[in-house]
């Protein structure tokens, strides 16, 4: 062993050293701080929504304010938290480590993408201060172009700008995975997390430009009063919906693919077991990433879309559920003959599997055209996508944060608190969102500021669950920050995991590895060979 260089955290301590850093690990931290801020903002909006909905009457906020609140919640959570969450924090930190590279292919671009993200965030916050926007995160025309008199252009600019951050990250990751793998790291030796980053980058690169341009067209239509979505000129509001969902459906996979990658790492490490059906897991990541572009029309079954198109989108939506189902079965099969320990990471991972499964199964209801007619635009849909995005993506994100916390910070977190938080989160989440399935099946439309009295009981349950969930989310923030100073120093490989990131020090030095890491096993999950 040569002399040990300082860790990436010790390199330069001034604020300026952080703000001009090109180290992928530091950029990951910058992202983590920023998205945590946005998560808190979006979470406050969510709490306001749940508070308002405790009573059937709109007694807390005006209708306009309520509409602005759920729009803000949607915009911030989708574009400023979920989309960048795992790729830009864990992905940025781990991708080069996992493939044995010194950094990503384009470190300056990586830093630029963070600044662009912050720029988009500034637009959105300015919009909030200026009075907000009330179109819903979906910006449906002609409401967003001709009828809303709120700050649509500001927030659309914010999302437009943040899209470039996504695109740059996607380009960076694909180029990195293709060209920067260490000797011996062949494609089928890549950890599934890396594969999921590859899939997610494909989606970011191919879908995001469409969203950006579509929002640009919305802005143009607001400015010029003319546009291709205006039916009076022979345009079509449904054209907007097509373009919007061409991005926004694959965007769901931007949120869930990385989670699948994280969970594969967590389960194998906690079960000390190779992943079951590695190749199939890889193919299903790629399959989901590509097929995800062919199903967007299932958001439009009652929109006035052609019935033939609806049938096509319906069958394709059923087909894309197959790889997701197989992934769930493979995760469970991985437990077979393992050495399972139920540490915090494992609780998060299994929580993910359960919630993702529920979200996926209810997705089948919505893929079935006949059921979608009555269920779409109700709380059933709200519950469904929160199971995927919050139950799925956020659980996996926090699970990943815990699992790699020792590597990132060089400190151990308090295990018992982590388990309590994970269990609380699972319970609080279900209490919040399961009643919403019942509400939706009972016919409560979404985005309602006031609602008929018969829905009150379930809404109160949901709000009660939300308060538990809020505490559960606040816990990790507290004990993880506490552990930065008071946590036990972490060994290089506390979980005895097999990925290359565990071959280096905790925290890693600036260029990740003192000596090039060795890829001497044919699987990233060779737990039994030890």
């Amino acid at each position, binding site marked *: 062993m040569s002399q040990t260089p300082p860790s990436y955290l010790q390199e330069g301590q001034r604020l300026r050293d952080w703000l001009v850093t090109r180290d992928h690990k530091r950029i990951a931290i910058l992202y983590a701080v920023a998205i945590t801020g946005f998560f808190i903002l979006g979470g406050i909006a969510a709490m306001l929504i749940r508070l308002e909905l405790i009573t059937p009457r709109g007694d807390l906020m005006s209708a306009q304010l309520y509409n602005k609140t759920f729009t803000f919640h949607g915009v911030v959570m989708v574009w400023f938290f979920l989309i960048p969450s795992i790729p830009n924090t864990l992905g940025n930190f781990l991708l080069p480590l996992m493939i044995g590279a010194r950094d990503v292919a384009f470190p300056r671009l990586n830093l630029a993408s963070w600044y662009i993200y912050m720029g988009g965030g500034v637009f959105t916050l300015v919009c909030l201060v200026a009075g907000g926007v009330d179109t819903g995160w979906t910006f449906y025309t002609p409401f967003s172009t001709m009828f809303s008199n709120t700050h649509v252009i500001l927030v659309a600019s914010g999302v437009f700008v943040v899209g470039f951050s996504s695109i740059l990250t996607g380009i960076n990751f694909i180029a990195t995975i293709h060209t920067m*793998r260490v*000797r011996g790291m*062949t494609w089928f030796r890549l950890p599934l997390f890396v594969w999921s980053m590859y899939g997610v980058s494909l989606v970011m690169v*191919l879908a995001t430009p469409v969203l950006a341009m579509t929002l640009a067209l919305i802005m143009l239509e607001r400015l010029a009063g003319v546009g291709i979505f205006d039916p009076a000129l022979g345009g079509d509001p449904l054209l907007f919906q097509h373009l919007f969902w061409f991005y926004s459906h694959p965007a769901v996979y931007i949120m869930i693919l990385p989670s699948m990658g994280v969970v594969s790492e967590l389960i194998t490490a906690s079960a000390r077991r190779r992943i079951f059906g590695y190749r199939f897991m890889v193919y299903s990541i790629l399959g989901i990433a590509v097929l995800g*572009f062919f199903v967007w*029309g299932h958001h439009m079954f009652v929109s006035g879309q*052609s*019935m*033939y198109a609806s049938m096509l989108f319906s069958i394709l939506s059923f087909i894309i559920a197959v790889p997701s189902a197989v992934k769930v079965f493979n995760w469970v099969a991985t437990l077979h003959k393992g050495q399972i320990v139920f540490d915090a990471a494992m609780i998060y991972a299994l929580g993910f599997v359960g919630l993702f499964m529920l979200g996926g199964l209810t997705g089948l209801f919505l893929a079935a055209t006949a059921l979608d007619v009555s269920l779409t635009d109700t709380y059933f849909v709200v519950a469904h996508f929160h199971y995927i995005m919050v139950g799925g993506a956020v659980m996996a994100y926090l699970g990943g944060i815990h699992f790699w916390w020792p590597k990132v910070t060089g400190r151990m977190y308090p295990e018992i608190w982590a388990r309590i938080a994970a269990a609380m989160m699972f319970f609080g989440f279900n209490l919040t969102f399961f009643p919403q399935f019942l509400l939706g099946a009972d016919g409560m439309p979404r985005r309602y500021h006031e609602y008929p009295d018969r829905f009150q009981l379930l809404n109160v349950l949901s709000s009660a669950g939300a308060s538990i969930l809020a505490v559960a989310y606040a816990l990790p923030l507290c004990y993880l920050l506490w552990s930065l100073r008071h946590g036990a120093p972490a060994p290089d490989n506390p979980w005895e995991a097999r990925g290359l990131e565990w071959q280096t020090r905790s925290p890693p030095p600036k260029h990740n590895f003192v000596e090039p890491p060795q890829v001497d096993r044919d699987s990233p999950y060779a737990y039994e060979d030890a």
Partner: protein
Amino acid sequence: MSNVAGHDQPQRHDDDGPPPSSLGGDLGVLAALFVLLAATIACAFIPMGVGNMIASLAIAVAKALLVMVFYMRLKRDAPLLRIVAATGFAFLIVLIVFTLADVITRIPLLTS
């Protein structure tokens, strides 16, 4: 081509890119582009119904291929780049085809 990342490889001073093109080739491509430009303008003035659009697009695709294959050096550069280029266009076609598939089939369901 993707496994070049060996730490123990000797440092090379050449970047492994495609060799320089030939002057005649580049000028020949330009000539071909101008011929196609003339052809597409000529075609536009012949009434062919829907054939006009097909001819226009076919010639445009031919011109685009010339530029990509020769000027952008897809022919001699790494095969992966061809896949990337094709993917961009393929997803654009998915966007357009699926969207139009809705627009042109907005008729009542033909039930037997």
